[in-house]
């Protein structure tokens, strides 16, 4: 459904993303991994329309740059690395914003279907009871859950996650990833996520792409990509030995 062909993003002389191609099909969870500064987040921003790029990004054969922002939002939802809210919005209001792309005219505030989607998103993320709470009173983990609920309410076909669990504790990480896995079970959906934790990537991903210095080093099914050889090459260290050593601490 989503494909990139020779995507390049330049920041001045720097090629943050350098001639990268990828494919994402329904049912897949594509894990994007690589060291800091590899260009993972930039690639995601390019897909979401946040930075200009050359090359072609296609949605079912159609250039996504030709889609209107609302059309794009109905197809692709993005959960950012970190979200903070400055005003005392309620949880429900933030989640309700996910329905923005479906507004027919400026008078149609919430259609029946829209309300249902919001309810479902709240229920899925376990926020129903917190619906009236002010965003200013929530913890980091709760805030991230609210924005996950927002992107669920947005009901996109592809969910893009930029290190969504980066600063969350283990319990929330696990919770978040299993929520997304549940979401992915519906047919016609796909996930593209940037992860730092290679174990998480292995555990949840179906496909993977390794990046370094803006280039794609390897892509394909998760088992074929996340091999010791590839990882060592990308991270420029003995990744496998390091993980063994970490695991040994528990035995």
């Amino acid at each position, binding site marked *: 459904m989503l494909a990139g062909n020779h995507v390049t993003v330049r920041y001045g002389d720097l090629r943050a993303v350098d001639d990268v191609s990828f494919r994402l099909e329904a049912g897949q969870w594509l894990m994007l991994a690589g060291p800091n500064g590899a260009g993972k987040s930039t690639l995601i921003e390019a897909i979401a*329309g946040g930075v200009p790029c050359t090359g072609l990004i296609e949605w079912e054969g159609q250039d996504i740059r030709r889609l209107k922002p*609302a059309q794009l939002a109905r197809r692709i939802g993005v959960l950012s690395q970190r*979200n903070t809210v400055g*005003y005392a919005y309620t949880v429900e209001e933030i989640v309700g*914003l996910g329905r923005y792309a479906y507004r027919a005219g*400026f008078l149609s*505030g919430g259609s029946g279907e829209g309300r249902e989607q919001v309810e479902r998103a709240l229920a899925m993320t376990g926020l129903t009871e917190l619906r009236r709470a002010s965003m200013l009173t929530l913890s980091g983990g709760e805030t991230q859950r609210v924005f996950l609920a927002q*992107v669920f309410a947005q009901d996109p076909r592809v969910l893009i996650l930029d290190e969504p669990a980066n600063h969350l504790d283990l319990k929330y990480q696990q919770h978040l990833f299993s929520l997304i896995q549940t979401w992915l079970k519906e047919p016609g959906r796909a996930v593209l996520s940037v992860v730092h934790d290679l174990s998480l990537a292995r555990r949840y991903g179906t496909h993977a792409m390794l990046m370094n210095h803006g280039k794609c080093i390897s892509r394909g099914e998760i088992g074929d990509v996340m091999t010791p050889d590839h990882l060592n090459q990308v991270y420029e260290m003995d990744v496998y030995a390091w993980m063994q050593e970490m695991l040994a601490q528990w035995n």
Partner: protein
Amino acid sequence: MNEARALKRERFTPLTYAMLAAALLLSMILCVCVGSVQIPFSDTVTAVWNALWGLPIPQNIAKNIILNVRLPRVLCVALSGAALSLCGAAMQGLLRNPLADGSTMGVSSGAALGAVIAMAAGFTLPGSGYGGIMVTAMAFAFGSLVMILSLAYALDRSLATSSIILIGVIFTMFISSVISLIITFASDHTRSLNFWTLGSFSGVNYDQAGILCAALAVCGGVILRFAPELNAFAVGEENARHIGVNVKKVKMSILVTVSVLIGVCVSISGTVSFVGLVMPHIARMLVGPNHSRLLPASLFAGAIFLLWADLTARTLLSPVELPIGVVTSLVGAVAFVIIFYRTRKAG
């Protein structure tokens, strides 16, 4: 625990609006009845009532003062207050910055500079003596807004609260000195520096009230229509893009609309500071941050506040009139410190 964290206020409060509307109406009536000249209440009521229904008005002092001095002034004050407050609310949402406002960001000063230049150069549009000044003020307001935002972006991509205000303050100081320079050379053609920096509603008429009303109807309608987008911006510009807001188009539309409104207000009454900063905060306390409620509430709150400020300005030292900006700044500066302190603590 969740109960404790749930917000106490109701989701939708027609009662709040009814109270705001009643407060506005009462304030307007009070401001028509009270002034530096004391006029019996019955005369006031007769004058307004008869004028409303086209009945002959008894010839007395009340007629001229009430109908030709106070009423147009009260209308202009209420409309300007509503417009400035709405602009403040829109900018605070759009820039996700609780201290944003035409006066703190230097937009009003920019508009004033435009108006001063137009007056000094005698720039008029065919058919309307005042149009040229107003259009120049709008253009300068927009120019300043774009300039301040680009400077702030260059300094700090996140458009943090303090950097944008810092630039606004420096810009305002710079513009004030340019204005005083122009006034020095063309003092006979333009209003005094006091007018441009502190504002005044002295001598406004029904034509100006009509212009304000039209501008508020059009621009206010546009801004109110953007309430969902403003909510998205208030949460974050990146998030707004992700949920499908046409970020560039919406931002540009709101900035232009706000500039037009501020340009109109400034060319009629000079820079009246802090209305747009303080009143949206009061409104937010009453109805919460959701712009579909916040924007209408700001309209009311701004109108009420400016009515009271103007009443103070024209009665406190009667027969001498204070510049209205003195009153609003007195209240506003204190509020500014409180808001700044609270945002610092929160963020």
